[in-house]
């Protein structure tokens, strides 16, 4: 018996923008339906339409039935009874979903009282119970806190508590963990599973993360350009996708479990909802396109086994058992010359030696006095050899960005040394400073924010060239645009006219303008959709190999890191916990934090994902203004909990230094009791090796 039944749902916005076209699905009790798709594919609009939360100028047609009762066209009063009681929604950004001026407890209690006739004190008690259920420590005390006093993960838990306050039959989760760190994401997903067990609700899980869907969902609906293009059981979709888009999507995700050669990007961009192609909306990007694809939009047809596919060539794909790598052109990336020389013989391009960066905490309005210190970066050392990629990974707040800024400023750090291309940043005069600037460039995370919206692309790329007095700027701009896969005529357009992936390419072109030797990449692909992300990763890899660049790559996505980096340094609260060659650190992690981090990452493989055991960390990152004594990780360390008291003493008193681990050539760990554990089951192609 299905709880929710959506039939042929269409949403049109003014101006003929068809955001959702003919979406049909149903969700049964206790079932998790995953909806995946790139940004702009209509996933969120679909769920807003179900909740009746779209702006009044949107035209919604079709049918949405909850327990057989039609929801579309209900008046606002009746809808309010349904919302929050039978259907609740969990939003992406937990900060903006709470009112900042009321306590969390009050807001959860309010959600209870809206739909149940309870006296205030009982509702408050129920709120505390709910907060306890979602795993908030000391719920009675925390209920009196305000939203800003909660961390992101805690807020998302409170949000879940609010959503399940009235035992809803259906939970709609719109990217519930996208804004969170991986270890926190693992916690929150666990809470969601608990919540589902407690309430027996059906869940509609909307996300772009195929790993999360693999672990959570029973069935998957893939959306493209406002239409469902494939639907089926999660195992079927992942192991035998039958629509080229799904195939491409799966082939374009970097995997954390082993080597796989270049990623397979899907060329082009999703169509604009205003000017859809005449036939199949995916046809312009599809490598399997035939003339018949342009004739009409293929309907979603049943192909047996509860699966539906919208592709005229799905039988052929079934028959030949094709996968994404067979169909999509695999890009060829030239090998790098630098790797032939052993690492020790290559020159070091960037070296950090015991660098610290502390921020004072000030108090007082007129007379400021120092009340504490934020230990943002607290003594980190690493080096990058020529032609190498070092990835700096860690959760938000661990000091990655501060480290980058310290490097990019090219000034003397508070303590320690930053050496770029053999020159100490503390001893630079003005001319050398400027010269070194051209050797060290940066690519930012958010391609929207990193390009001046008021400047045409040509000017943006030309800016560093002009600043350094280069001649024939126009020629060089053309050359750079071509190098990153754009056309020279794009120079006269503004950044707004480009998609996210293209904008990131412009950012890369600007960084390359001065022929730098070292490129700092600050989360260069985290703001991009997966299919676009693959293209940018390949571009970065190709540029590195052909231009002989060295990368310092900062990321929180460990799968991307495994794909792109040679070495990896894991940071926690301003310190490096583990550093070494990617294979060593990923396959034989020895620090408990690295192990937890790696085990928290969802794999885009339902079978593996179900059998995996997670190392769940408790709580959140401690405040860098007041780090724990001794080993900074001990407050959350699963290993510390298992140690005897005498052994624990050492962790509390003595700070572990990065020491060479075991026999590995290049593997350092900062843990007194380092021990290798395999947390990622090796993928098949790796076992073959």
């Amino acid at each position, binding site marked *: 018996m299905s709880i929710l039944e959506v039939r042929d749902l269409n949403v049109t916005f003014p101006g003929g923008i068809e955001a959702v076209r003919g979406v049909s699905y149903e969700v049964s009790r206790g079932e998790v339906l995953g909806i995946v798709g790139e940004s702009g594919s209509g996933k969120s609009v679909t769920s807003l339409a179900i909740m009746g939360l779209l702006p009044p100028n949107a035209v919604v047609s079709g049918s949405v039935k909850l327990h057989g009762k039609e929801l579309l066209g209900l008046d606002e009063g009746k809808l309010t009874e349904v919302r929050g009681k039978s259907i609740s929604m969990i939003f992406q950004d937990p900060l903006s979903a709470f009112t900042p001026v009321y306590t969390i407890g009050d807001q959860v209690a309010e959600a209870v009282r809206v739909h149940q006739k309870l006296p205030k004190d009982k509702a408050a008690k129920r709120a505390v119970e709910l907060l306890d259920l979602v795993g908030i420590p000391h719920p009675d005390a925390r209920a009196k806190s305000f939203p800003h006093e909660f961390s992101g993960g805690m807020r998302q838990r409170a949000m879940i508590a609010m959503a399940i306050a009235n035992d809803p039959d259906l939970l709609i989760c719109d990217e519930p963990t996208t804004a969170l760190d991986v270890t926190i994401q693992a916690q929150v997903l666990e809470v969601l599973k608990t919540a589902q067990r407690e309430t027996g609700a059906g869940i509609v899980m909307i996300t772009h993360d195929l790993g999360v869907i693999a672990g959570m969902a029973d069935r998957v609906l893939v959306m493209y350009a406002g239409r469902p293009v494939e639907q089926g059981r999660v195992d079927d979709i992942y192991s035998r996708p039958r629509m080229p888009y799904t195939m491409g999507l799966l082939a374009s995700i970097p995997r954390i479990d082993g080597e796989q050669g270049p990623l397979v990007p899907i060329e082009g961009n999703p169509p604009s909802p205003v000017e859809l192609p005449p036939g199949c909306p995916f046809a312009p990007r599809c490598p399997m396109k035939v003339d018949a694809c342009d004739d009409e939009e293929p309907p979603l047809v049943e192909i047996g086994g509860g699966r539906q596919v919208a592709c005229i060539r799905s039988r052929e794909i079934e028959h030949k058992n094709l996968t994404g790598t067979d169909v999509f052109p695999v890009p060829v990336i030239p090998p790098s010359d630098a790797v032939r020389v052993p690492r020790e013989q290559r020159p070091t391009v960037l070296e950090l030696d015991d660098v610290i960066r502390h921020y004072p905490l000030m108090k007082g309005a007129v007379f400021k006095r120092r009340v504490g210190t934020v230990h943002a970066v607290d003594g980190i050392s690493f080096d990058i050899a020529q032609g190498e990629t070092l990835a700096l990974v860690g959760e938000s707040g661990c000091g990655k960005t501060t480290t980058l800024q310290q490097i990019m400023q090219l000034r003397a750090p508070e303590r320690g040394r930053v050496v770029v291309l053999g020159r100490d940043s503390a001893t630079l005069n003005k001319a050398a400073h400027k010269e070194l600037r051209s050797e060290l460039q940066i690519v*930012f995370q958010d391609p929207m*924010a990193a390009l001046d919206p*008021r400047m*045409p692309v040509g000017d943006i790329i030309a800016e560093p060239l002009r600043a350094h007095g280069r001649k024939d700027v126009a020629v060089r701009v053309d050359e750079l645009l071509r190098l990153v896969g754009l056309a020279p005529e794009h120079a*006269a357009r503004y950044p707004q006219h480009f998609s996210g992936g293209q904008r990131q390419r412009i950012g890369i072109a600007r960084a390359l303008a001065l022929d730098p030797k070292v490129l700092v990449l600050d989360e260069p692909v985290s703001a991009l959709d997966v299919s676009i992300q693959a293209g940018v990763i390949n571009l970065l890899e190709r540029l590195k190999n052909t231009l002989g660049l060295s990368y310092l790559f900062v990321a929180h996505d460990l799968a991307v890191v495994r794909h792109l980096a040679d070495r990896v340094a894991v940071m926690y609260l301003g310190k490096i916990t583990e550093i070494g060659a990617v294979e060593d650190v990923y396959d034989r992690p020895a620090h408990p934090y690295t192990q937890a981090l790696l085990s928290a990452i969802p794999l885009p493989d339902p079978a593996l994902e179900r059998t995996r055991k997670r190392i769940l960390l408790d709580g959140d990152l401690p405040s860098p203004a007041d780090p724990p004594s001794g080993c900074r990780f001990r407050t959350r360390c699963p290993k510390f909990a298992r140690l005897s008291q005498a052994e624990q003493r050492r962790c509390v008193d003595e700070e572990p230094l990065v020491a060479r681990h075991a026999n590995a050539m290049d593997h350092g760990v900062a843990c007194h009791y380092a021990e290798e554990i395999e947390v990622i089951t090796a993928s098949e192609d790796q076992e073959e090796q």
Partner: protein
Amino acid sequence: MRSKVVFARLLRNRQARYGAIALVLLVALAYIGPYIGPYDWTDKDFLSFLSPPSADHWWGTTTIGQDMYAVTLRGMQKSIIIGLLVALLATGLAALVGAFAGYFGGWVDKVLMWGVDLLLVLPSFLIIAIVSPRLKGASWLWFVALLAAFTWMITSRVVRSMTLSLREREYVLAAVYMGIPRWKIILRHIVPNLSSLLIIDATLNVSAAVIGEAALSFFGFGIQPPDVSLGTLIAEGSRNATGYPWLFAFPAGLLVVLVLSVNLLGDGLRDALDPGSNS
């Protein structure tokens, strides 16, 4: 590249085209018009006082027999220059001071903002009243400078607070990491991103300056008789606006058209500079 792109977009914008054409026509009228009319602005026709528009006096005559057409155009010459100059100076000063204070912060910010606050608390009317007698006989450009000096402060505070948020943007950081000098970053990245605010401010300043000049002239400062400006003419004409409408209608109408055309041009310029608009 940018100037070329912006200019092309400006030409394509219909509003901006109409605004520019109207402004050019007004300037042409102000400077070429007097040669076409039969009278000079200093001439007095003692045979017709306060006569309505006719074939001889196109826009009628004043109480002392001056030809309204000639006088109004003479006034407009002054007003166009004063209005445009004051607006440009005031907005430019506001943008520079605000952006430098916001971007540099620290003591630069403190000193500049002290200056702004000081000017804000000083009664501008009194200062101008005290200073203008000493400027008797000096160039009227002094008057423009005085007017501009007292209109820019509030905008510059707004510009400063907007700069505070702009300087944290990644494209500003990117420029710093490229090794671009700070004053260049301000002129190239910060001020253009405030252009919507600045252009609106400048167009509003044009009309404010013309009216403000009229108010000051009315009290005997600024443009002194026998010289005229649109402001003085409107002030005089408004007293008899019902009985002798031509004394009021022509200068006031021209002022409206002048401000309107500047506004249209400003809107067009804003759209041309703002890549988000679809023109």
